[in-house]
């Protein structure tokens, strides 16, 4: 079997599901396609030997963030196609602008030399390695993240209350 086959299968699936997020009519379908897209990106993490990030990605994105999206969609009952779509002119302009962005992004990396892969330390994505980095060199940002999450939680609760005086 061609060893590069998993990458291309996963890449095709990611691009397809990402396009369907944008193009599908019903918001719930968009959410489901986005969950699928996140799983394919998780597959890319596995291919890149980043097991810790794979686990965190599945737990945080597919497990928490997408459930939050689905819950909000059902909370405000958005399953009907009630948004009038933008005019075709604006849609075409959006597509052309995104295509131009893609062109620029690809063009600036076109002539760059490829970084040769350093294969000697392929276990940097393991839990023990990243744990040592998180609790050693990056201890301060790691603790500050907890303050950020606490602030976000308090803010979300305060915004969600019915009457804030």
């Amino acid at each position, binding site marked *: 079997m061609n060893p*590069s086959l998993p*990458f291309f299968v996963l890449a095709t699936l990611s691009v397809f599901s990402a396009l369907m997020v944008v193009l599908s009519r019903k918001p719930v379908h968009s959410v489901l396609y986005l969950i699928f897209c996140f799983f394919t990106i998780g597959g*890319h993490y596995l291919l890149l030997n980043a097991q810790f990030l794979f686990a965190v990605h599945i737990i*945080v994105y597919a497990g928490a963030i997408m459930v939050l999206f689905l819950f909000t969609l059902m909370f*405000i009952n958005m399953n009907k196609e009630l948004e009038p779509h933008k005019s075709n002119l604006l849609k075409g302009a959006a597509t052309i602008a*995104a295509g131009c962005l893609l062109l620029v992004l690809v063009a600036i990396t076109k002539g760059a030399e490829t970084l040769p892969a350093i294969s000697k330390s*392929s276990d940097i994505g393991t839990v023990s390695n990243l744990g040592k980095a998180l609790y050693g060199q990056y201890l301060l940002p790691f603790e500050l*993240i907890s303050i950020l999450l606490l602030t*976000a*939680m308090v803010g979300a609760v305060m915004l969600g209350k019915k009457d804030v005086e």
Partner: protein
Amino acid sequence: MNSILQVIPLNYYVALAAILFSIGVMGVMFRRNAIIVFMCIELMLNAVNMLLTAFSTYHGDASGQVMVFFIMAVAAAEVAVGLAILVMIYNNIRTVDINELNKLKW
């Protein structure tokens, strides 16, 4: 599993991340439902995360993956606050159509 580093050049990951990011940008400009605009922003964050992971793995440096971990935490906080704001907007004006939210537009 190590063979992926040998058979896939880093450029392919750069191209894939660029494509996913552009799709996210297109979605932000394309749709009028604010929740889907949010989802497209998540898509862009994920493209960047994947690129950071690819660079980190190819370079053999764990710092990139630590940054991805932090980006995920920030994204979670952003989504929680953003969706709370959207629910509040919906409670007040009964729509999340971004074309209706034009009070701050000159």
